[in-house]
């Protein structure tokens, strides 16, 4: 009997996320367009709603070109190894309200174990295309993803330390309830929570190779990085893999910091928790698209500097701040101590970066003659 329920849940989750993928690919182009003062796709169906279907058919019909010197087996396997782990990640996200698929005791560990497999997929894609540019792109992509896994894990450990368990469902329960009636005690509303959420958001952007970290596909330098030799449905799979990466990253951020299925206000609790989970997820995906439209791309060495000299130290400080918050029992003294520590870290980082930047302050002389 429970097998049927499980099948039903899997069905719901998979249909939801593939629908979200279709809608997100359309929403990306629409939001990008709206930011750029234009309308975005509106020819296929009412205001462009059938565009994802059209894209899907196009990808299916398009001829799948495989370069002659390419390593056929690896070339074929790469997209699969890219997408499969991403789909696994949706299993452990705590939607709440009976929709949570499985409550793994080592939920978070499972999340990182599976998401680190996609680096192998990037290598297989880059290497099998036998194209100088794609090897170059693959090298950069792996360097970036492995480097950004360190801050990602460090930041994810802080809520684990406070909640006391690796299971995501337990973490959501820990964030349930409302302090003084109105404010939900989500982790994001604590000093270390704000910093942790921002760090997690930035590192999950880097993990999914999204702007401002979409260096591997840096059009302006190496055409399409490790995706140069892919076309047709395999390219669509990579595209889907990237989107599932964003959904998984945002899902994790929602679960760890935004209180999973919790309603922001007590009187809104009649809406089932999984709906709240999806609303927050969609809002985060919207912010990802908004970031993509407004930030330029970073150089590979700046990217690494940011990771090792910026995010990892900040993640350690955040860990300490969370510990202080935990042992000071939360409340206003927690705010002062943990908050003070974090603000001090930010000011120190601010001064270090400004001093190293050669001449932030620029003077331009307006010659009269």
């Amino acid at each position, binding site marked *: 009997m429970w097998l049927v329920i499980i099948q039903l849940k899997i069905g719901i989750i998979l249909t939801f996320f593939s629908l979200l993928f279709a809608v997100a690919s359309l929403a990306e182009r629409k939001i*990008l367009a709206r*930011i*750029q*003062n*234009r309308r975005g796709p509106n020819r296929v169906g009412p205001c462009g709603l059938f565009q994802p279907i059209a894209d899907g058919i196009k990808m299916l019909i398009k001829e799948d070109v495989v370069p002659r010197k390419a390593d056929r087996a690896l070339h074929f396997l790469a997209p699969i190894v890219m997408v499969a782990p991403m789909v696994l990640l949706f299993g452990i996200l705590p939607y709440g309200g009976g929709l949570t698929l499985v409550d793994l005791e080592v939920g978070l560990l499972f999340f990182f174990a599976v998401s680190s497999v996609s680096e192998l997929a990037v290598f297989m894609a880059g290497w099998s295309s036998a194209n*100088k*540019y794609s090897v*170059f792109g693959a090298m950069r992509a792996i360097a970036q993803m492995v480097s950004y896994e360190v801050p990602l894990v460090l930041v994810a450990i802080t809520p684990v330390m406070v909640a006391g368990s690796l299971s995501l469902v337990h973490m959501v329960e820990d964030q349930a309830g409302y302090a003084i009636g109105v404010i939900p005690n989500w982790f994001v509303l604590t000093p270390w929570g704000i910093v942790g959420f921002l760090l997690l958001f930035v590192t999950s952007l880097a993990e999914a190779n999204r*702007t*401002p970290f*979409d260096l591997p596909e*840096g*059009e*302006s*330098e*190496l*055409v399409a990085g490790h995706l140069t030799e892919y076309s047709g449905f395999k390219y669509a799979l990579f595209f889907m893999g990237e989107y599932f990466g964003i959904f998984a990253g945002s899902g994790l951020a929602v679960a760890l910091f935004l209180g999973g299925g919790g309603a922001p206000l007590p009187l809104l609790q009649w809406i089932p928790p999984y709906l709240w989970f999806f609303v927050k997820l969609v809002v985060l995906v919207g912010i990802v698209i908004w970031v*993509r*439209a*407004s*930030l*330029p*791309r*970073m*150089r*590979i*060495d*700046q990217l690494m500097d940011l990771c090792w000299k910026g995010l990892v130290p900040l993640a350690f400080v955040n860990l300490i701040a969370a510990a202080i918050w935990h042992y000071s029992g939360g409340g206003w003294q927690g705010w002062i101590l943990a908050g003070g520590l974090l603000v001090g870290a930010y000011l120190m980082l601010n001064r270090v970066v400004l001093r190293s*930047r*050669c*001449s*932030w302050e*620029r*003077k*331009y*002389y*307006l*010659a*009269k*003659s």
Partner: protein
Amino acid sequence: MTSTEEVESISEKSERLLNISMGPQHPSTHGVFRMKAVLDGETVVKLTPVFGYLHRNHEKLAERTSYLGNMPYTDRLDYFCSLTNNWAYALSVERLAGIEVPERAEYLRVITAELTRLQNHLAFLGFLLNDMGVWATVLIYGFREREKILDLFESLTGARMMCNYMRFGGCRCDVPDGWVEEAKRITDELPGVLDELEQLLTDNEIVVARTQGVGTVPGRKAINAGLTGPVLRASGVNYDVRKVDSYGVYDRFDFSVPLGSVGDCYDRFMLRLLEMRQSLNILKAALNELPSGPIINPKAKNRNLRPPAGEAYGRIESPKGELGFYLVSDKSGTPYRYRVRPPSLVNLTLLEDMCVGQKVADVVVILGSIDIILGEVDR
């Protein structure tokens, strides 16, 4: 030009070097421009630009066409700023044949040239940020404003980019009614847009990190290499042909010439923003004081003009640098020698010196900051 001993050091670690060719179909080079780069990992060791993909031998063509017939061809040189090309050509022919230009025509020339400078710099900002990866957001903000200026050109000269508007001794047609008010409205709106662009770009940490300290050019070297325009002024050299030659009626407007201090990509990028503000000053003043009167010198002969034998070199400050026309006439209807001094080509002299030692991603930003256009480079 890498010195000889450096060349040896390249060959002996040659197996670790990567030869890549950026362009001519590369998405970020401005037209068909190719660079052969030798990379050691991420840093550029050697970079040789390759020219000639858009070479149409414009100068040979001009030697068999009449003086008036050459005017529409000058639109095709720097196809983003056709009006400044026309003005440079008209200026050098007037200097050759000794033709005066009435007041109103001089003012119309200044107005159209400053409008061209505005739309060229707006497009430049868009392309530079597009190279840095902003997914065309800034490009479309720039083009949104540029469209308004191109509509002004279309209602005045008949075409958006191929205006063919200036004649020897003045301009071809007068301003349609309502044009000056429309131009005033646009020049009053633009400062707001520039503030918005500045807020979006100048303090953006990623833009600053990608451009500061990249592709630095010292002033003295820039002068010797013949750099002109915003690229030269970014290195702090105070040389603007509008102020030096004060051709046309530029001496009547009080505008200042922004100068950079370091001479890197960030300064070149900021210079364009500041220059746009100065152009707006000039435009406001010129549009208010536009005198009435003839728009072309009635005595000037345009159709079969036969200037006296001799030569002349006229130059103006085009948005990309000093654009000059060197004409040699042998009293026949077609010029004996017609030479265009292309600012984009000469500004590329130091491209290799700027790029060696920088990262691959910087080469694209450096090329973008010089703002070249291939119609002018290859002619």
